[in-house]
């Protein structure tokens, strides 16, 4: 498909490995509406993969297929070399796929710390009773999980709001907390649904830096949907372009930028 398959190293020294996830001929229908039409693409280990397209192109649906929220009528999802059977979202989460949402989905009444701790849920093994008594294993487990969460808090520089209820935070910080919760799951694959929607330039720059640092520090593979073209082109290694549920482009930011079909989809074509 292109030169980047297999083990390569990017210009800035990151390692891109083999195929982590592959979508094969995915078709997703809602009644008579075809949201996704026969799309195939892959996500390589360690890369930042963007999915772009005009409104209603089917980007979020695609992300929901990856996260297991929708099961496609046609097509196969392959993750780490195995075909993934239809799964519930929590089962997908256990596989190591975490996500953030277009409309922030945090627990408003809980503190930032508690919200991020919920991201550790898939890593907790002690039962409710043991948790309630909170001695021995349950205590050790919480301490270990808390340490990981604290490292993420430090990483995303949100120490000052650790104990603040999420409902009181401004939008930009909520977005960051949501990223923190997703990171707390220590995912193999991180899905970000418009991480920069509604942010000002400075917040976008901050968020971009956190996304790149995440990819860099933890080697997390990232798939993201974003509307800001400048951000997408700067952040991602490869871009999938969708329009009306179809894939119209796939390649490096430069290839996509010069693709006539993509330009037409974004700027519109004259009907004459």
């Amino acid at each position: 498909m292109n030169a980047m398959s297999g083990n390569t190293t990017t210009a800035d020294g990151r390692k891109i490995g083999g195929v982590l996830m592959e979508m094969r001929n995915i078709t997703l229908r809602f009644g008579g509406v075809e949201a996704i039409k026969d799309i195939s693409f892959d996500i390589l280990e360690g890369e930042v993969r963007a999915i772009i397209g005009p409104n209603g192109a089917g980007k979020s649906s695609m992300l929901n297929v990856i996260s297991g929220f929708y099961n496609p009528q046609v097509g196969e999802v392959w993750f780490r070399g195995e075909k993934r059977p239809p799964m519930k979202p929590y089962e997908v989460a256990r596989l190591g796929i975490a996500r953030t949402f277009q409309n922030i989905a945090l627990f408003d009444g809980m503190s930032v710390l508690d919200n991020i701790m919920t991201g550790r849920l898939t890593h907790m093994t002690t039962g409710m009773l043991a948790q309630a008594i909170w001695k021995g294993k349950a205590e050790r487990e919480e301490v270990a999980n808390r340490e990981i969460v604290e490292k993420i808090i430090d990483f995303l520089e949100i120490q000052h709001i650790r104990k603040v209820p999420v409902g009181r935070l401004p939008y930009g910080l909520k977005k960051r907390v949501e990223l923190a919760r997703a990171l707390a799951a220590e995912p193999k694959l991180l899905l970000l649904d418009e991480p920069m929607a509604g942010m000002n330039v400075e917040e976008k720059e901050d968020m971009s830096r956190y996304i790149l640092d995440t990819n860099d520090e933890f080697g997390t593979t990232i798939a993201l949907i974003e509307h800001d073209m400048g951000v997408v082109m700067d952040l991602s290694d490869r871009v999938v372009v969708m329009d009306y549920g179809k894939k119209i482009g796939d390649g490096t930011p430069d290839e996509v930028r010069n693709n006539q079909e993509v330009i037409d989809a974004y700027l519109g074509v004259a009907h004459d």
Partner: protein
Amino acid sequence: MTDAHLSDEPRSIPGLLARNVRRHGDRPAYREKELGIWQSWTWAEVADEIEALALGLLALGLEKGDHVAIAGRNRPRFYWTMVATQMAGCVPVPVYQDSVAEEMAYVLDHCGARMAVVEDQEQVDKTIEIKDRLPNLRDVIYLDPRGLRKYTHAHLKPFAEVQAAGRARRSEMIAELERRRDAAGPDDTCVMLYTSGTTGRPKGVVLSNRNIIETSRASAEFDRLTEHESVLAYLPMAWVGDFIFSLGQAMWCGFCVNCPESTTTMHENLNEIGPTYFFAPPRYFEERITTITIRMEDASALKRRIYDRAMAHARKVGPSILDGKPVSGRDRWLYRLFDVLIYAPIRNRSGMSNVRVAYTAGEAIGPEIFDFWRSLGINLKQLYGQTEASVFITQQPDHEVRADTVGVPSPGVELRIAETGEVFYRSPGVFVEYYKNPASTADTKDADGWVATGDAGFIEEGTGHLRIIDRAKDVGKLASGALFAPKYVENKLKFYPAILEAVVHGADRDYCTAFINIDLSAVGNWAERKNIAYSSYQELAGHQDVLDTIQSHVEEVNRSIAGDEMLSGCQVRRFLVLHKELDADDGELTRTRKVRRKIINEKYDDLVNALYDGSKTVTTETEVTYEDGRKGSIKATLEIRDAAVVPVEAKRMEAAE
């Protein structure tokens, strides 16, 4: 103090460190919050860390007398770096962490830094940007590896690795290190601090071991500081105050220095630590009051009433109780009741429950702000100092605290007021020199060791307290010969929330006049409550009720100035409220919001003339620059008001001349 005193005490900071280990090696010396938990190091552990680092620096080839730059926020490892540098016979040079690469390049180049110890990627990037221009800079050591994994530069080394190398080569290097450490004498350089320099390039102030140790000792004795104090280190490390509080005094007394988790968690960490000794600029105390006031305004009516009642009582008797003056039994009992209900919780929320000594300095503090904290039982005092003095020139003793003075000379400090009103001082803390700048050194410090402060002031008769009135270069004379100190009057005016900015004229004139800028948020709020409709700043500024309020403020200031023998000539006779806000974009203010007198005088020269020719109104047109760079103009007719002045007896005027 004399050398005799120094001879039986350690002569350097590493010497003090060794003494602290001997005296109380297992007491906490440093704390830092990391991953949400306060980590602490005892004096013995700190000594071990510092030695390992010093050995590591030697292993990297640090030569005696080299300079080592330090750039980062307050963290124990940076304080250790300073001591390790001194141990290796070298000079630490802390740099403002938020300075841009250009400023950093100037300082590193000027001192010829051989190494830089920096915090993170941001600082490393700056050093990489400027490294080509700095032939002396050979190694850059960093604390936080985040984002630096891809950096392949050979001169970059992680802090921990330098320490590990030092530990590994301890046996072969320790003799050299001990030789250098023990060679440090009282006249060797302890630290070099660059003054931010409002004019021209920053100057490197060289402070000797004697300067720092003598000043730390004297000031610690002044406030009876012991090893049981704790401080929160949050002010810039490149500032002399932090060096004295968090290193000089901490090492002298052996108390614990606490470093916040990040720059944004200061309030929370202050609350957790509850320091006993605290320093903050006036703005900090002001902001905390604003926070408290806003939250009280959101509280229920009953709580608000209790709060108002309690605060009124605190204002009445609080300072007297703090100063040990007689207070009636009933008032004392009421104060104790309110203390449980109101004062103690406020102190707690502000992280000041344990504060025994708190200082503020740097600029004038509003008397209401000052009294607010004192009335809550917090021993807030003022000091006056500068880098060249190793901080302390004057400070307020307990029970002699007032908002309008900066205190009596610190122990060992002599003061002299020159003909021009400028304050001179001489003390054991007086700096050695400006590095590589003998001309400036000679301008500032004379052969007898007297240093010019650049501030004008006078010593109050009776109490012996120093009062600072203005920058010496801004102080002039009225036509009558009386002293003219515009900033003194402006500060008094600006203490009213309604007044944002004031510019007082009067040099070589018969009397003083003023331009006033109203504070749109404060006055706008007031207008809303009074149902006064307005559509623009200009309209609000010209409203009769607003002018009446401002006039009453001006007259109040006049009454307060009249009571002051030296400055009674500075009363404002006539004023106007400007039709636009003074703005840095129009060149009327500096970026740090200081008034640029000359430019304002030229630009508004028609208004100044109107203030002195007796007219009742003046029409003017002013060019303004909008935020997007476009230019426009504002036309306005301004009303000039006469303010009542308190007549000053002629004999007093003569006395002031």
